[in-house]
């Protein structure tokens, strides 16, 4: 791809903001609109923008393929693991109340972890989709 100065400068300016916004949506989802799904998509959009502007190889250098596979599985494992953990602590599957000292603390911790798992899986899955489709164009 021919380097385009304007695109490069604007992308470099925007990408940190997009990632920051994704983190805000992720961890502020309890209080405002948003949550793991939206945050994951926004986060992956930052990496996709980088790959579109700076080339697919540079994008793949940030997060290599095997990492994406691990991350996509890790999110589901975190989510299901919270359920298993609450089973071990003597509650029902995915019953967060048992995770904390009181009900509010337990629910808070559970929701935070679960949303984190959702965010990681969604971000990794979107990037896997993008790299799979875009990677075919190179051959």
């Amino acid at each position, binding site marked *: *791809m021919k380097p385009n100065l304007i695109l490069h400068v604007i992308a470099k300016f925007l990408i940190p903001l997009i990632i920051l916004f994704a983190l805000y949506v992720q961890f502020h989802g309890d209080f405002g609109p948003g949550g793991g799904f939206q945050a994951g998509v926004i986060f992956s959009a930052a990496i996709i923008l980088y790959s579109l502007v700076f080339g697919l190889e540079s994008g793949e250098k940030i997060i290599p393929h095997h990492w994406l596979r691990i991350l*996509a599985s890790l999110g589901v494992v975190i989510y299901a693991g919270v359920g298993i953990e609450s089973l071990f602590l003597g509650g029902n599957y995915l019953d967060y109340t048992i995770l904390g000292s009181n009900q*509010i603390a337990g629910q808070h911790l559970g*929701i935070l972890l679960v949303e984190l798992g959702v965010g990681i899986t969604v971000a990794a899955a979107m990037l896997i989709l*993008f790299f799979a489709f875009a990677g*075919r164009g190179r051959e």
Partner: protein
Amino acid sequence: MFDVVVDIVLLTFLATTSFAIMRMTNLFAIIMLFGIFSLLSAGLFVVMDAPDVAFTEAAVGAGISTVLMLTTLALVKRSKEPYYDEAPKTHTAWLPLIVVIVTGSALIYGTWDIPNFGSADAPSQTHVARFYLENSLPDTGVPNTVTAVLASYRGFDTLGEVTVIFTAAVAVMLLIGGKRPKSVPKTEGEEAKDEA
């Protein structure tokens, strides 16, 4: 009053965009219009006080799916007109037109029984919504009821959704991801140099 004006403007734009999508033959332009359509729907959801849905629509509909469709188009497109071969017409437009008119009238007839938007006796307000609105904050300490329902009350459903997304990624990876045996690693620099 202000809401009505915004609604009318957004719906007019939606109708115009969908008409343009129908009439156009340039696939690139159609994909961009799909993105605009999603963004307009997101605006509509904001007006209807559903920021969580609007968020998802703007990020997934206008963002990711546009990019995915563009990358797909880059794989299959022709560079000049005609962008695709139209299948020869085998029937007249009458039957589809009748089907569309009958279905459309049935749908519009169905809207007569639907309670007004936001009315207090709508079924969506009278069943579980009240329980969640009253109990989600004391139960979970999370002010955003949508998050409380999604992650806590309906945690099983969300686990299923995450598994679906994971499965989709695995399926795409199996179908078109990874290295194909005949492909040669690219050597010349397509990789843009970072000049800063």
